[in-house]
């Protein structure tokens, strides 16, 4: 008999006084023992809601309105609060999306991990802690013997996520629910966490539900996939079949959005004219500059870049690499401590106050969170009229005409003019955000993670729009993202940042190709590929690199990546790395020569299964 049997499941949300609306409906599936089932879908698809019903839980304002959820033959929807508290955390365990938020900040980690078994009197404290340490070891956590004594804020995000899995495994549950457990992690951290989870699940023959929006991640861990959309099931099937031969049209569109996109823009012809934006030796950060001319907290160190009119530069880096700071410095929001910036060959003042209206107009910034960047009390028309009046001093009638043109440009219907931002979808908000920047008729738009908070399909549409705007308006872009595929789809040139230093900079077509900077190599190999078995193909050296703690920006001049670098030498620890021009066209900050890197990287790629690309 299957461990989990769900049929006719129906969850409703009770709005303020309104009629209940369906969140999910007609859900039915079963999970065999030791099987891993993935629930995949975009935000609002109901995947988490369904996963939570397996714990007999519905979020505030929601209610399990009908259907049956059976675990081991017992009906969960009919359980009393006491029975539910015996089910939850003991027979069915939950691993939450953001471990940083799901751990109680004021309790020690060990107390939280062992709470489930201790409060039920299943184990004395000493035995519980010994078991916890064993699980820590199995999940490859550093310092398994002492990490439990720390508080949540004292360990990294990747470690917290593994600690949360340890907490779930403490009671040897029959079913573990992983709710987007690696979504909040950096890509190099994700690989290792994913690997640890997969090992733990396999070793213990755990039955698991894996909730995710990321098909490539799911492909590594799930036996079977359920594709959800708007609270209904679109397709169910074994992982291999869903990936190779999807039957449903929505599944196909998901796969298309997740697959690597071709380069959309042709390489820029080399021209002699001065670049639109030229940045040299930029140093920026926080705190007051000391007597030696150093910043106490440098976020960016010695960054130089050029953006030609109409071209697009991609900035890639993990959280804390300083990529958003770079945009803020160029926009004048955070004055640089040292270095020069030139716009069309003319020096650009470091602060907003010192810049002229024309300079302000020509550089616009689009922030990641359209939610917070748009004034919630202003209508779309008001939001778009502001820059028109400010930069172009247009008359009312002229403004109205331009606003409509702008909406047309970002492909939004006129009906949205009177709406407030709260009445728009995430994708619509980001389009308004973009239109607001376009209203200034800028020469350069700084796009800071503009698609990161959007679903894959919606994000892909925004990227297409950006490419189109570049073609039509001759806009230059600085496109910041942590997602390599996104950057490569949009940009002619790519710059890779790590802990505030530039690691490599080169044409979009050649970065991420050997020979490359060792960090670029790690980054490229950490991105999950859309094929089962990718995770198994990653060798131990690469996992060890990924395991390293991401470096924080420091004052030292040496290479920031040195602690995680597999090819570091003595000089790396002491000397700042030289800038080398590689034959492929990239500039690389590394002590190693092109030949050394090529030898090391090509030997490894041949040892690993050659990545398959979907057609």
């Amino acid at each position: 008999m299957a461990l989990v049997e769900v049929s006719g499941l129906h969850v409703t949300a009770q709005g303020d006084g309104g009629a209940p609306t369906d969140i999910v409906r007609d859900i039915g599936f079963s999970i065999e023992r030791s099987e891993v089932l993935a629930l995949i879908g975009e935000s609002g698809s109901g995947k988490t809601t369904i996963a939570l019903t397996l714990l007999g839980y519905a979020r505030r304002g929601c209610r399990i309105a009908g259907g049956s959820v059976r675990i081991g033959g017992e009906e969960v929807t009919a359980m009393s609060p006491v029975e539910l508290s015996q089910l939850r955390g003991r027979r069915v365990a939950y691993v939450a999306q953001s471990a940083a938020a799901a751990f109680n900040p004021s309790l020690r980690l060990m107390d939280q991990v062992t709470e489930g078994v201790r409060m039920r009197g299943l184990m004395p404290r000493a035995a519980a802690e010994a078991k916890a340490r064993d699980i820590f070891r199995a999940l490859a956590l550093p310092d398994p013997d002492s990490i439990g004594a720390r508080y949540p804020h004292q360990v990294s995000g990747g470690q917290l996520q593994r600690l949360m899995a340890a907490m779930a495994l403490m009671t040897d549950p029959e079913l573990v629910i992983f709710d987007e457990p690696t979504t909040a992690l950096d890509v190099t951290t994700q690989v290792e966490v994913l690997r640890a989870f997969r090992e733990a699940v396999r070793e213990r023959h755990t039955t698991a539900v894996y909730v995710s929006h990321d098909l490539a991640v799911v492909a590594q861990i799930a036996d079977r996939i359920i594709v959800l959309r708007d609270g209904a099931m679109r397709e169910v099937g074994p992982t291999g079949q869903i990936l190779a031969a999807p039957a449903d049209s929505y599944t196909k569109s998901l796969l298309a959005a997740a697959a690597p996109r071709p380069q959309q823009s042709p390489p820029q012809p080399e021209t002699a004219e001065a670049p639109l934006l030229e940045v040299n030796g930029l140093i920026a950060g926080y705190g007051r500059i000391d007597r030696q001319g150093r910043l106490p907290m440098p976020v960016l160190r010695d960054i130089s870049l050029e953006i030609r009119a109409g071209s697009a530069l991609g900035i890639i880096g993990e959280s804390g690499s300083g990529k958003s700071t770079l945009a803020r410095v160029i926009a004048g929001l955070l004055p640089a401590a040292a270095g020069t910036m030139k716009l069309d060959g003319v020096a650009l003042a470091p602060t907003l106050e010192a810049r002229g209206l024309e300079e302000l107009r020509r550089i616009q910034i689009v922030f990641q969170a359209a939610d917070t960047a748009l004034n919630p009390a202003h209508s779309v028309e008001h939001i778009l009229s502001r820059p028109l009046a400010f930069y172009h001093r247009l008359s009312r009638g002229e403004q109205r005409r331009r606003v409509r043109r702008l909406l047309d440009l970002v492909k939004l219907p006129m009906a949205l003019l009177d709406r407030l931002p709260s009445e728009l979808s995430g994708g619509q908000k980001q389009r308004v955000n973009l239109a607001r920047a376009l209203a200034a008729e800028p020469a350069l738009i700084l796009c800071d993670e503009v698609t990161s908070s959007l679903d894959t399909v919606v994000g892909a549409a925004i990227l297409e729009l950006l490419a189109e705007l570049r073609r039509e308006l001759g806009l230059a872009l600085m496109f910041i993202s942590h997602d390599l595929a996104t950057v490569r789809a949009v940009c002619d040139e790519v710059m890779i940042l790590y802990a505030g230093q530039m690691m490599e900079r080169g044409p979009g077509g050649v970065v991420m190709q050997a020979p490359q900077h060792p960090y670029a190599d790690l980054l490229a190999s950490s991105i999950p590929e859309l094929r089962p078995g990718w995770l198994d193909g990653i060798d131990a050296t690469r996992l060890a690199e990924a395991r390293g703690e991401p470096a924080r920006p420091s004052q030292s001049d040496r290479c920031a990546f040195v602690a995680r670098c597999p090819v570091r030498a003595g000089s790396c620890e002491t000397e700042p790395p030289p800038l080398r021009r590689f034959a492929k066209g990239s500039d690389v900050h590394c002590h190693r020569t092109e030949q050394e890197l090529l030898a090391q990287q090509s030997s490894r790629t041949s040892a690993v299964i050659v990545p398959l690309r979907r057609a």
Partner: protein
Amino acid sequence: MLMLGMIARRVLGGLLTLLIVSVIVFVGTNILPGDATEAILGQSVSPEAVAGLRKALGLDLPAHERYLRWLAGLLSGDPGVSLINRLPVAQLIGPRLANSLLLTALTAAVAVPLALLIGITTAIWRGSLYDRVANVTAVSLVAVPEFLLATVGVMLFAVQLHWVSALAKPSIGSFTEALQNFTLPVLTLCFAVTAQMARMTRAALLGVLDSSYIEMARLKGVRPARLVLRHALRNAAGPIVNAVALNLSSLLGGVIIVEVIFSYPGLAKLAVDAVETRDMPLVQACAMIFCATFMLLVLVADICSILSNPRLRAR
């Protein structure tokens, strides 16, 4: 280390504030029209007599010199001599301060546990009938000023029903005597502060109960009592302690009204009388005590919230 530094900064800030307050109190009391010579000698008296008395009282010195003398006196525990009855201010204040502290302590002993209980239970049963009734009652009580509560209380329980005395003596000889004396003043003070504290406690706890880690604890099968006591309360402790401290310090204002209405011989009554008689040393000393108490409560609250935050405690 970081935490000790933060606490030291708070203490230093408190002391600095007190110093500024002392200047304000001194200047403020000197701006009041008339001085003690008028109160002592009456209005129709020869200028020579006034000048003589002013010299004797040290009122003829320049203001900054008088301030420094007064400040030095305060720091050495001697806030001067009452201008009216020539008794040391310390001696006048001593027993009155004890009386006021007794009244405040009794009020706090009733109000704080009651407020926490109401705040926590309404947060747990959010949206229930109990929660709504408690909320409406609390808002109504906050809106009613203390003097009205006190007057109505006296009319009802002392004048009409003769259950308690209309005047309050600072004596707790026996339990019944204590009830007689303190029931009305303590209840009056309790009403307003309990309602405020309960509401603020509820809000602080609700913020925590909505967080991801509480949902996570629920999904671990943690039962409601343990959920609140072990997981939620310690994270709401900072704001709750602050709410308690703020309300206890606002109690000081209530004490003035209640002491006057019930003729209770406390510090506040003394201060009000001193203002009437222009007895500046006494007014100044009382004002400094009120301010210092306020500062102390806020400081304690600050330190509590620093201590309850593991990010500051352990680094």
